[in-house]
Each structure stands twice: as C-alpha cells, then as structure tokens.
C-alpha cells in the first residue's frame, strides 16, 4: 500500500513529469470481455480502452451492461472470458483490494462507508497513519482536513458519516478514492445527488486528475454532462458495446440514437396549461425541524408546478410535509381541497387523493425482494373489491396489477420476479403503477427520474402529461434542472427553506433560476 499524502496532491502538479502523463498511452484495455449470471448474458464480447488523462464516458440505458463492466474493472466481478490489461500488463483482478493495489479506485453509488465512524476514520480505514500499532489521531485529523480542503469539500472531519446527507457521503467516498492516488478512477453517476456547486467542484477535480494523467471512467445519465467533461464516449446496449466515439464528432441526438437504437423525438412533451381549481395551498408552511420556513405556494388541478433548488434546500421537505412525512411546526397547516389539515399522515392524505412518490425508491418506495405484482398491489389490497369473505381474490389482484404495469410500460413484464432485478427505469415505473391504483387528485413527485435511463424518462414524462390531461395537479420536485424547466407550467425556486422566486410562462429559464441561486450565494459570501 502506498502512503497517502494529501499534501502532495495539493500542489496539483508534480515536480517531475509523471510517466503516465503521455496523453495517448493506453492505460487500461479490455478485450472480448463477457460475463453472464445463471444463463443471463450481462456482457458479451466487449472491448474497452482508457487512455491516461482522458475522461471516458460509459453511456447506455439501465441494464445495458455498464454496471457489470465497471464492476469487472473495479475487481468486484470476474469476467467469464476476456482479458484486462493495465499499463501493458495482463491482470486478473481477484478482488476490490487487488484492484486498489493495482491503482484502480471506484466511487460507486452504493457507498462503502461505515456509517458509525467519523469522516476522517472512514477516509483512512485500513490505511490508518500511526506509529507502532497506535493510531496517530492528530495525523489523521490533519491529513483528513487537508484532503477535504484540497477537493473543496466543506465537511467536518469529525462528523459521523451516518449523520451526513447522501451528497456529503458521496464527497467522503470520492475523497477516499482520490486518497489512494489511483491511476484509474471509476465514477458511477457521481452527480446524481450533488448540488450545482458541488458538481462544479467535482468537475474541477476531474479536470485536475486528468492533468495528472489519471484515466477516468465516468457513468452518467445526463447527456449535458457528457459533453461538458467527456473526451470519448462508449455507448452500450443489451450487454454489447455499440460504438466508441470522440465527443467532438457527435451530438446529443446521435448519442441517444446509438443508445436506444431508435430515434427519440423531443424528450419533453408539450403539456397544455389549463389550471382548474386550487388543490393544494401552503401559507407560511413551517416544519418542526426548521427545514421549511414560511413557504407559500399553490398547486391547481391541470398544471405542473415545479420546485427547483439545490440539494438540501428544503424543497424535498415541502413535499414530505404535505404527505405527513415531516412534522409541521406548531400552528402550521396545509390546505388541501379546501380543508385545513394540521396533522397530515400518509393514510389521511391518501384518502383525500394526494399521492406521493418518494425520491429514494430503495428506502421508501419498493419492497425490493418482493414481486412486481405484490409491489403494485400493496395499496389496493384494502379495496373491498379485492377481498371476499376475508380472503384475497388473487385473480383480481393479478389482473389489476398486470393492467397497471402494462399501462406504465414495464418491460420485459415479469409480474412474479422480484423488482430488485429490474433496472432503475422499470423500478420507477413500478412505483408509478403502484400509485396509479388509487384515486388521485394531486401527485407530488420527489426526484422522479433519478437513476432512470433516457428512454424511460421520456415514457415517464409522457405519463405525467397524460395525468395532467385528466385534470390531476402535479407538484414536481427535482434537482434535474432541465426536467423542472421543461415540464413545469410554473416554478418556485427554493433556497434555504424559503421560496426565493416564482416564475411562470416564458420567465421559466435556466438563466432566471440560476440567477436566484447565485444571487443568494453572492449575498451569503458578502455577509
């Protein structure tokens, strides 16, 4: 194991030229790599190469084989066939530790952090600096601080990792990976939970790693990101490599075509704005934990109202408070369908026709090891139609669940397989199918397309458009700015638990929304 010295990295460039810094050197190559799981081919005869100092983007729908590929590179999985070469040497990576030792680090979406340990303890887990078997806590603190500052992450090294937000945990994970001074870093959808500012920091960091000759494998679902930081992109579909192209030679449309194998028109449907009666009105909404402070907003039938804002700005809590997942402050209430409700609970709100889609499918949305049918039918079991003499009518349940799944376009439709086997896009469709079984006046969606591939995104947007047609109101909470901007009829920009601005019609633009963010940051730094 090499020693870790963040101090060395701070300089950004090294005194002597690194042997890796030749831009055209093939750092990592994979040839004819295949992998299958009990009969299912996850990867078939895939070639991949990575040059030193490049960002190589892997792009493809969920289930295209990207994850399997990076798991092979990171030593998590072993290929059935094929050769992996690192700096000209054939390697058989037998474990993650083995890969790390060879200079390959990965930042996965599933974090490898110990939640009960402090940030600094996590950073140096397994490679603690110390003397004669005793930990040098001062050295750990100093190096951790330096490493975090170096990457521009504002984190307290003594904070318990479990108490951090997802974005902050990801920063710890990234810092930990960079500390091992790898030759290859894999980023698996790193921006999914980062704020704009953090994304900037991350991209700056990636730029610096590139300059140092590190090869970067980058997975994302956001097309704009590909062009922003990528040098080359490899598009995958159904476990095969479709093509590797230099990004200067292609445009976004071409990439999506390669990915889906068909032409996708406009991602965002045009949704007519026909506002009806007011469904939800918040007047100085206040949560007990102070994450929402004096928010006033309104959602009418037949319109999509967007909540834009940075991660952790309180926009998520507004939705949670309305559904009864976040306690309201004393005296605060929400008005839904004309009634004032001071103590909302999911049960009460569902009865009134408010549906909520949580941002975290794994934690709050789905029963991962249960079947698609059981997930979809969970809320409908209470319907009298589904019971006779106290027993479930499973044939009715089966038919209704299948109908909803088909309507949402879950493919391939496997009603009895556990949903964990589905890609993110299909899982989200199952979540939507599930809420479709109930009467709905207002739908609150929190980050509805995180980890969802572009084709499924288009389908989900189409579905939302259809709901609006039927007179449902939608409150769309999302950190994906293009999504909010393109779908919403009106947008509230949330900052620090308050409504910063309210945009409607042609005022809804990236410039105006960002203006609200940055004005704030400027104001804050001026203080």
């Amino acid at each position, binding site marked *: 194991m090499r020693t870790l010295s963040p101090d060395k990295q701070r300089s950004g460039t090294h005194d002597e030229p690194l042997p890796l810094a030749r831009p055209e050197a093939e750092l990592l190559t994979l040839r004819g790599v295949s992998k299958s799981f009990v009969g299912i081919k996850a990867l078939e005869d895939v070639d991949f190469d990575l040059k030193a100092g490049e960002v190589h983007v892997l792009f493809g729908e969920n289930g295209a084989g990207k994850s399997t590929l990076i798991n092979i590179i990171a030593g998590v999985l072993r290929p059935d066939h094929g050769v992996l070469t690192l700096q000209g040497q054939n390697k058989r990576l037998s474990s993650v530790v083995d890969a790390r030792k060879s200079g390959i680090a990965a930042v*996965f979406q599933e974090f*490898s952090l110990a939640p009960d340990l402090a940030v600094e303890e996590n950073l140096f887990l397994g490679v603690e600096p110390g003397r004669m078997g005793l930990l040098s806590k001062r050295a750990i603190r100093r190096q951790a601080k330096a490493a975090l500052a170096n990457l521009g992450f504002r984190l307290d090294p003594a904070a318990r990792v479990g108490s951090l937000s997802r974005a902050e945990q990801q920063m710890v994970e990234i810092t930990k990976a960079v500390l091992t001074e790898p030759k290859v870093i894999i980023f698996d959808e790193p921006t999914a939970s980062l704020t704009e500012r953090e994304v900037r920091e991350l991209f700056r960091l990636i730029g610096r790693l590139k300059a140092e000759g590190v090869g970067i494998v980058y997975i994302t679902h956001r097309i704009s990101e590909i062009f922003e930081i990528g040098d080359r992109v490899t598009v995958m579909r159904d476990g095969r490599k479709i093509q590797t192209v230099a990004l200067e030679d292609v445009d976004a449309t071409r990439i999506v075509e390669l990915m889906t194998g068909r032409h996708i028109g406009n991602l965002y449907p045009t949704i007519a704005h026909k506002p009806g009666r007011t469904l939800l009105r918040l007047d100085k909404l206040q949560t007990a934990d102070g994450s929402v402070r004096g928010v006033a907003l309104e959602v009418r039938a037949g319109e999509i109202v967007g909540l834009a804002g940075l991660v952790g700005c309180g926009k998520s809590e507004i939705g949670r408070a309305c559904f009864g997942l976040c306690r309201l402050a004393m005296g605060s209430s929400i008005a839904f369908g004309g009634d004032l409700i001071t103590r909302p609970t999911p049960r009460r709100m*569902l009865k009134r026709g408010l549906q909520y889609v949580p941002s975290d499918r794994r934690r*709050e949305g789905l029963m991962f090891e*249960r079947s698609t049918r059981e997930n979809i039918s*969970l809320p409908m*079991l209470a319907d009298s139609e589904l019971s006779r003499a106290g027993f479930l009518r499973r044939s009715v349940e089966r038919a209704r669940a299948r109908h909803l799944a088909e309507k949402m376009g879950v493919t391939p439709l496997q009603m009895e397989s556990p949903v964990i086997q589905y890609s993110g896009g299909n899982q989200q469709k199952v979540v939507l199918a599930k809420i479709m079984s109930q009467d709905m006046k207002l739908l609150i969606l929190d980050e509805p397309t995180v980890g969802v591939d572009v084709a499924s995104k288009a389908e989900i947007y189409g579905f939302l458009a259809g709901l609006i047609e039927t007179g449902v109101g939608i409150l769309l909470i999302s950190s994906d700015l293009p999504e909010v901007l393109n779908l919403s009829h009106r947008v509230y920009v949330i900052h620090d638990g308050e409504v910063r601005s309210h945009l409607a019609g042609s005022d809804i633009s990236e410039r105006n929304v960002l203006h609200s963010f940055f004005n704030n940051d400027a104001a804050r730094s001026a203080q």
Partner: protein
Amino acid sequence: MTASESRPPELGGNLVRRLFVRLGILPFFLIAAIVLFSSIEPRFLSPGNFVNIARQSTYLLIVSLGQMIVLLTAGLDLSIGSTIALASVVTATVMGGMLVIDPTAVWLAIAAGSAAGIATGVLVGSVNAIGVAIFNVSPFMMTLGMLSIAFGLALTISGGSPVYGMPDVFGTTFAYDRVLGIPIPIYIGVAVFALVYLLLNWTRAGRYLYALGSNARAVHLSGIHGVSYLFLAYVLCGLLAGATGVLLTARVQSGEANMGQELVLQSIAACIIGGVSLFGGIGRVGNVLLGVIFITLLTNGMNMVRIDGYLQQVVLGAVLILAIIADQTRLRIAGHTLTR
C-alpha cells in the same frame, strides 16, 4: 459490495448446481439424512417410524409457524421456549385446581386449563408486541428480556418442580389417541398449518406481514397502519407457542417449567433452513414445513442410531450454520448482490 467468488456456470452443465440455486440446500439435506440413516438403521424407513416422525414434528411445526410469522416482519422471537414453559405450568395449575374444586367436571377443567395456557401465550406475545411495535424495542432485546421473565414466572408458579394433577383423559385425547390410525396431534398440526398458510397467502394481513419485513417505510407510505400488523405478528407467535405448551403438557402429563427450551433454536433453524430470510420479507410456509420435517427427521434418526443427546445438540447447531453458509453461497452463485 460483496465480491462474487463463484465461477460461471458451465452451459448446459451441472444439474446439481442448478437445482441448488433453484431450491436451496434443504432437498440435499433431506436426501442425505434419509440415505444416511436408512443405510445404518433399516427401521428408519418403516411406516411406523413415518407416523412417529409426523407426530414428533407437530410441536415443532406449530412453534416454527409462529416464529416464521415474526421472522417475516424482520423480527425474531427468542421467548417462545419460556412461553411454552409458562403456558405448560399455567395449564397444569389451572386444570389441577379446577379438578380439586369439582372432581367430576373433567372436561370443564380441561377446557379451562387449555384456554388458560393459550391465553398465557397470547399475553406474553402481546407484551412482546407492545415493546416491539409501540416502543420500538429491538425484537432481539425485547424477546430476550421476555425469555427471562416468562421462565422466571414459570419457575415461580411451579416452585421448580413438575405440576401434576391433570386428568388422564387430557393426555390420551390430545396426545395419544388415534383417529383412523393417525395420532390426534397430527390433525391439530395440519389444521394450524392450513390456517397459517391461508393467513399468509390469502389474506390482506398476511400480505402486509411480508410487506413490513420487506420495507416498513413503503408500507407506511402506502397508507397502511403497519403497527397493528406488527402487533398481530407477535400475538400470533405467542398464541401458537401457548398452544404448543398445552399440547406438550398433554403429552408429558405434567406442567414443566423446563419444557420447550430446545424449541427456540430448532424453530429458528427450521425456518432458516426452509428459506425464511432473517432480514424479513422472504419465506414460504411449505418450505418451513420441510425444514421442520428435516429437523425432526434428524433428531429421530440420531436417536435411532443412538447418537448421544449432547452430541445431537452439536450436530443441530452445525447444521444450522451450514444452512446459512449454503444460503449465502447460493445467493452468490445466483449473482445477487443483495446489499443490506
């Protein structure tokens, strides 16, 4: 991230491996046990011994079904052994006491004693339920505490010695008599099995129990009052343990404070070997039955080939651990990386 140790399955090859991935370790355990014991002791395969195994299975089956219900909700009940003991002592005490008051009202005494025993189980289960469902005590700690409480109560009531004084007809009816050549406990076991099967597969409550163990948050967000169903799980488990206590009391003809302790480990083992997940949400009633049969078959076989009782405990523990290792291996081969 767990690293997969498995080699890829050869195409078209290895039938055993594919069966293992599909069915788990239990069929292999069952076959191995039957082959082993019948080769050493031919009487193992006699029809008489089959009935014997079925009857012996009954008690473990009823307890294991209760344990399974709790395991499905991602819980655990360590107190069932003590519950059985307490129910046994209470049953014997009430029944004996009633007979002292009116020696002619035999059936009234039997009914009152049995009801008291079952009620004891429900009571213990309810206390567990209050702790787990309402005060959010971890199931492990709650039922561990209850293990001590119920055992202590059983010893206090019985004074540490067996409680006698029950009518003979209690034992003959509920443990020894046969109808159509089949001992009565088997009928009771079959009935309980059918009821639990219906509950878990054909009722809303059953579905919610699975759902609670899979993702309690999702249950809450679906507008379901999850707490009541979690409560129900522990009450049912207590009820089934209480019923087992009554049946075992009928069999040994006395109230025993040291009854049932081995059933804690055996019931958990039967469930786990039968594929019930310790993390909740996964498990089939039919497979638990097979797990119960396997455990009973194992003890029965070891008795027949005269393996010492102490050594039997070693074997049982080892089999439990083996089953869990086998299950992990199976998940790995299947390529699942279920991260929890």
